[in-house]
């Protein structure tokens, strides 16, 4: 088209004959002819370059897009992985938090406490010294495991300082065992309570484990810092009339609860089945040198009523214990309780022990009367002694080899056909205003002084005095009736409810000419004329 046009334009110019114009035209045409191919060629080159550039650009774009896509996928994958990790972490954290909150809560809600007492005592008895005694330290733990479910534990260290056992197995021309037990006098570690309780309702709670026997009011409220006198009562501890000494736990299970009776009244009960008290053996070893005589090595086996075992019971029958109390209004209560169970081990005939207790408390403002009566009947004491003699064959066996005399003795101890007794406390709480600004009063919100008078009596009916048997026959079986009285007067200062500083005077007396040690488990008297005791006690009881 371009050439055609050029040709047509040249023809026209020739026809018109205008030389100069023609020349110009020719020059223009020639110039155009010279330039046009170059222009066309340049245009074609630019286009190709442009195409290449575009292609390169496209390729770059494609690459970029691919890269970006890859990166995006990588990112998404990383995000997915991070999310999974986070979820995992969150779940773990949640689980950890939940478990931490459960255990944390359990630990936080579990409370460790303690109570205990020590005292300084003087006595008129020759064999007792003026002494400090660390009576006991009881560690307490209570924990609400879950709603309606709780656990309780009391571990007692009585007069406990240390216990050390050393053992060595050796071989030297044979095999030998060397053992040494080192402990402190009268020391005892005892599990006083360890139970779990399920609160089904106020009137029905299920409790199982090592339970305090609900006989009377002292055993179930035995914490030292609750009482205002530094020594426990005779019927609960010092004799005792209870089948076993307080605090008296038994392994068992049962129910307890309380319910309203009228507008201000309340009835509470405890009812348990448990292993129960049994005649159990206590072994006493004596090694004694004697001036002008042989050296004595004696073993005394005493069968005496003891709290039931926490292992296999040694008797087939179980014991029942129940206490019912009625409180007509706040501050007053009257209770009746029973204990019944076999006390003989299976190798002796089955005989039951039965206890009945009555207890109560009456309050008139600052004045209180609180007391407890217990009657315990050990059935068939002689029926038990005869088969015991048959089984044990000889009550006493002795032999002398060279300068050493060996003696083995079996006896029944602490048994009477029946024992009964009571304690009654008269208390008066007061706080003289003038003490409020002294050291005794100014740091405490509600300090108290408590004056107490306690009267106690115990009657022993047919208490075993002497028993001997030989070749399976009873050769001696003596019993006696005894009486034990005690009067205690005390003054207690309580800066706070859980701490008591006590001062008390005691007068204890049994039948004239009889030993106090044969009717108590805490008074040592080798002389029969020591049938009474004067004692002054200063005590500290605490709880936290």
């Amino acid at each position, binding site marked *: 088209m371009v050439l055609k046009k050029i040709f047509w334009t040249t023809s026209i110019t020739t026809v018109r004959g205008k030389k100069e114009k023609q020349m110009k035209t020719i020059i223009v045409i020639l110039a155009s002819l010279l330039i046009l191919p170059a222009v066309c060629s340049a245009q074609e080159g630019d286009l190709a370059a442009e195409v290449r550039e575009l292609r390169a650009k496209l390729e770059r774009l494609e690459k970029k897009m691919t890269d970006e896509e890859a990166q995006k996928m990588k990112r998404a994958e990383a995000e997915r992985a991070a999310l999974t990790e986070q979820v995992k972490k969150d779940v773990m954290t949640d689980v950890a938090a939940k478990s931490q909150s459960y255990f944390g809560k359990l630990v936080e*809600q579990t*409370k460790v*406490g303690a109570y205990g007492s020590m005292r300084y005592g003087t006595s008129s008895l020759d064999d007792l010294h003026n002494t400090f005694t660390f009576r006991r330290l009881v560690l307490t733990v*209570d924990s*609400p495991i879950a*709603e*309606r479910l*709780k656990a*309780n534990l009391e571990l007692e260290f009585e007069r406990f300082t240390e216990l050390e056992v050393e053992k060595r197995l050796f071989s030297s021309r044979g095999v030998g065992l060397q053992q040494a037990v080192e402990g402190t006098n009268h020391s005892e570690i005892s599990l006083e309570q360890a139970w779990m309780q399920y*609160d*089904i*309702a*106020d009137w*029905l*709670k*299920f409790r199982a484990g090592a339970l305090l026997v609900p006989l009377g009011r002292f055993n179930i*409220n035995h*914490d030292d810092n*609750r009482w205002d006198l530094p020594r426990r009562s005779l019927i609960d501890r010092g004799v005792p009339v209870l089948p076993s000494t307080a605090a008296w736990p038994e392994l068992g*299970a*049962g*129910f307890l*609860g*309380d319910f309203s009776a009228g*507008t*201000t009244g*309340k009835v509470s009960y405890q009812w348990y*089945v448990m292993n129960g008290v049994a005649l159990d053996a206590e072994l006493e070893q004596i090694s004694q040198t004697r001036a002008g005589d042989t050296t004595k090595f004696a073993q005394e086996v005493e069968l005496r009523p003891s709290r039931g075992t926490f292992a296999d019971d040694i008797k*087939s*029958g*179980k*014991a*029942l214990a129940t206490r019912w109390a009625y409180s007509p*209004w*706040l*501050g007053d209560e009257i209770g009746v309780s029973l204990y*019944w*169970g*076999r006390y003989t081990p299976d190798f002796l005939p*089955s005989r*039951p022990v039965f206890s009945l207790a009555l207890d109560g*408390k009456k*309050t008139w403002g*600052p004045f209180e009367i609180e007391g407890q009566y217990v009657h315990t009947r050990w059935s068939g004491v002689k029926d038990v002694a005869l088969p015991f003699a048959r089984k044990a064959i000889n009550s006493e066996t002795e032999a002398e080899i060279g300068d050493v005399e060996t003696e083995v003795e079996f006896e029944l101890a602490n048994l009477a056909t029946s024992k009964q007794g009571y304690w009654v406390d008269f208390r008066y*709480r007061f706080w003289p205003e003038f003490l409020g600004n002294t050291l005794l009063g100014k740091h405490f*919100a*509600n300090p*108290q002084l408590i004056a107490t008078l306690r009267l106690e009596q115990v009657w022993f009916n047919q208490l075993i005095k002497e028993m001997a048997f030989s070749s399976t026959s009873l050769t001696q079986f003596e019993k006696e009736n005894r009486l034990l009285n005690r009067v205690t007067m005390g003054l207690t200062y309580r800066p706070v*409810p*859980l701490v008591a500083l006590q001062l008390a005077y005691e007068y204890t007396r049994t039948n004239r000419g009889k030993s106090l040690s044969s009717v108590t488990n805490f008074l040592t008297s080798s002389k029969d004329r020591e049938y009474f005791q004067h004692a002054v006690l200063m005590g500290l009881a605490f709880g936290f």
Partner: protein
Amino acid sequence: MDSKISLRQIGIWLVCLALSLGSSQFALGQEGVFLKDEEAPKAVFPEADSFERKVVRSNEEIKAKIQQRMGKTKTSLWEDSYVTFVAKKGETILGYAAIVEEIGKHRPITFIVGVGPDRKIKDAALMVYREAYGGEVRDRRFLQQYKGKQLKDPLLPYRDIQNISGATMSVEAIGRGSKKALALLEVVYFEGTERK
């Protein structure tokens, strides 16, 4: 007695347990939650038909004012805030109530104290008891002793309050808490900015 008796006894327990589990009227003894926040004011003002709830933030000034009014009685616990209520019947104000906490032996006891316009305790009710022993402080026969008590009263066992044996720490805690509630309501409602 022999082992057969024991088996029979176990059977009796199981029957008792089954019967009790079938009962719908369960209530907790000793520790437990007895009242929720929203139920509490009704327990001390049963005749009220509406309650205005107000949370009072505690600060040093309020603490100082409360302590001043409590006198020698020292609280065992300062709360961060107090839930209080104005109890009304129609447009008439019947009184005020405050939820307070005090430590018993080891754990806090939560309870509500209702105070009448005469600045005397109208009633008190236990909301949460956490101690293992001494749950008898929840009993009506114990709490009704606080009715009519005011800030000037000692609110102490063996003084003007009948003690519960074995729960003296909890009894003292209820007394301290009641005094704290009386002082708080005095500061906030009777003398303070919320005066009605």
